[in-house]
């Protein structure tokens, strides 16, 4: 559906993107992560044909979007700007885009989308009077006015309060259930973790990681083991022991608890060592790495 092959972009001799590669398949929700200034929006603009790559190619449905007016009917976008006109009502905004996309039965379609965005009661109000969250939801409705197969969303919940963020996230999940392909540009790790099946991490214009979320967790994260001891003396002994093990890279003691970061998955050995040294363990568990941990590992490890 979306193919980005070896894309490099330079502005005034400065390299903004350096050999970016990824594919987004049909029905996938793809998260494109990176800190501010990493090159996410530039990549999105290249996919949309708003910018030309210095080298490499970016295709949607195997074609270049910038020069194919008809192909753009299959693609919905929500950029940093909502693409809405403050002087027009919510209804008129959707109606304008519905006409541009030549949407059949547009009255019915607009009604459904206003319902979907929870803005039916405000349909006659000028968009300039809307909150940022309402504009974002209306922007998402606008992006879907022509039933696109592919949606490219740039920071869809940026600047929204938690309730509005959740609503936008639910809307995206709803779209994903309809088997639409979604490209999500974001630096909100929590959002991406909850929505996306596959991610790429971009940092300073270079792809640092690209895989399914679970695979990245396994690939980039060292296993972490958390144990709780029965008393302070046990905790101190366990801490000293763990620090002496060569396959433990990091160890932290807090009260009766210890977290140990391992160089390799070696949980059973640790337990054997502790029990073998007469240390009484009350509880032991493997910790799941969050996407945030993976992201920080990737970005810091660049």
């Amino acid at each position, binding site marked *: 559906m979306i193919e980005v092959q070896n894309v490099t972009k330079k502005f005034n001799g400065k390299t903004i993107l350096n050999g970016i590669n990824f594919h987004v398949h049909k029905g996938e929700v793809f998260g494109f992560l990176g800190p501010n200034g990493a090159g996410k929006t530039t990549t999105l*603009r290249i996919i949309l044909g708003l910018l030309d790559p210095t080298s490499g190619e970016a295709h949607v449905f195997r074609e270049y979007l910038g020069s194919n007016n008809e192909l*753009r009917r299959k693609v919905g976008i929500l950029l940093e700007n909502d693409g809405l006109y403050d002087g027009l009502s919510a209804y008129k905004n959707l109606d304008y885009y519905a006409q541009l996309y030549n949407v059949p039965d547009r009255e019915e379609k607009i009604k459904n989308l206003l319902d979907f965005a929870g803005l039916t009661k405000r349909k006659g109000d000028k968009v300039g009077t809307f909150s940022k969250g309402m504009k974002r939801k209306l922007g998402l409705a606008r992006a879907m006015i022509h039933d696109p197969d592919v949606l490219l969303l740039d920071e869809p919940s940026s600047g929204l309060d938690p309730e509005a963020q959740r609503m936008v996230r639910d809307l995206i999940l709803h779209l994903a259930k309809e088997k639409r392909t979604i490209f999500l540009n974001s630096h909100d790790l929590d959002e991406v973790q909850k929505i996306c099946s596959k991610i790429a991490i971009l940092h300073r214009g270079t792809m640092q990681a690209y895989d399914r979320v679970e695979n990245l967790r396994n690939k980039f994260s060292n296993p972490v083991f958390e144990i709780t001891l029965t008393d302070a003396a046990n905790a101190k002994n366990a801490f000293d022991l763990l620090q002496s093990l060569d396959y433990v890279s990091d160890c932290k003691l807090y009260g009766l608890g210890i977290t140990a970061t391992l160089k390799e998955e070696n949980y059973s050995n640790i337990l054997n060592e502790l029990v073998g040294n007469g240390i009484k363990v009350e509880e032991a568990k493997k910790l799941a790495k969050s996407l945030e941990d993976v992201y920080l590992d990737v970005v810091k490890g660049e």
Partner: protein
Amino acid sequence: MSISKIFIVAKKEMMGIIKTKSQMLVGLFFALWFSVMTAPVIKTVEESVVFDTYNNLMFYFVLMLGIFTAFIFSPKVFFNEKREGNIETLLCTPLSLRQIWSGKVVGVTIVAYLIALLAAVLMTIIANIFSTSMLLPSPAIFLHIVLVVPAFIAVAVGLLGFGHLLLGMRENQIINISIFIVIFFALSLTKNVIGVGFAVSWIEVGVLLMVAVLLLALISYLTRYLSKERIVTTIA
């Protein structure tokens, strides 16, 4: 090029201008003000040249006012859309860049032309108040108002729109202020530039029409040099 798409954009821009009260009031105010300030020159000329003077006034004033009004309306349609970033979304619709540009040019031209027509009517009414004989535009001036004026308004809007899309925000602001001063000065000179003893003929009108058509073709050609990348990279 799909004409219907152009008219969808044109209609939206027209309605946008008409519903922006401040802009419409400015346009209408200048139409009224320059008409009131200029038309009384009729009472200062000899009866034998009243008709020619009136036609000369119509020839110059209606054209300049149309261009001035176009200048007032164009920034909202091109510059603001670029500054607010909506142009990026519009560029991702099935419209080509030239369709977007054309739609905006048509939308602004229609409203600016309607105000120029209103100014022509006002000018005629005021001129008749100060004249003992009935004053109406000559056939050549009538053709000028019907064809040349809208063509030149379209040229002005097209050129301004081209500049707004091509240039960065700072350059646009400087150019806008410079053009405003030039057009305002030109309008203020209306009374002085109308030479007595000179009558606008079919030849002048025909030449101007040809110039307008050539300029329109030239500007339309220039839009080839507009690119999405150029627009996007000059937004901020």
